[in-house]
């Protein structure tokens, strides 16, 4: 039977302001993909709706595509389009 994992997703800038917190908690099946995480986030946090499509996901401080796998204990973040400089 597939076990589940708790993932903390750090959020920044506009996402942090709109959601009023720095980390979102979600439960996913062990070994879920970044794409599955995005679906779960959209279901769980409707306030992300307008922004999610333009966000990137990082896992252990590397940008990852939707097919990448997330493991329990990974450092995960949801990153809006960057605007440094």
């Amino acid at each position, binding site marked *: 039977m597939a076990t589940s994992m708790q993932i903390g997703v750090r959020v920044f*800038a*506009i996402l942090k302001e709109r959601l009023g917190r720095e980390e979102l908690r979600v439960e996913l099946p062990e070994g879920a993909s970044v794409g599955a995480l995005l679906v779960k986030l959209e279901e769980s946090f409707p306030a992300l709706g307008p922004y999610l499509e*333009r966000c990137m996901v990082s896992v252990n*401080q590397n*940008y990852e595509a939707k097919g990448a796998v997330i493991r329990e204990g990974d450092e995960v973040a949801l990153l809006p*389009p*960057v*605007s*440094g*400089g």
Partner: protein
Amino acid sequence: MYRVTKDPIWVEEIEAWVKEPSAGAVVTFDGIVRNNAEGRAVRFLEYEAYPEMAEKCLGEIGEEVKRKWHLNKVAMVHRIGRLAIGESSIVISVSAPHRADAFAACQYAMDRVKESVPIWKKECFEEGAHWVNID
């Protein structure tokens, strides 16, 4: 030197750090908070970072430009928090034996920062504020 900091950036210190006896050129980009954006008066900017990843990305860009051009040293420092008009938000300083490499590497590094380093800018106007690129 790859750093995200809440403190003011001192350009002279960074240039002193990149200077070496074998380097005949130092090129520095000093990014300054401007008093206007899209025709509106800006009061101040607020920058936020994912600091650990931002420093890692700055380091990756620094190593990339060292592979592409013949350089001595690369320093990239981005400031976060509330910045006033006229303050430096980012300084990139590159030393190289010859100027062409230093100019090219400095420009390329700055372009890469804009594309990929997880730092976000909020423009704060007389009335209202918005996060650049998304709000």
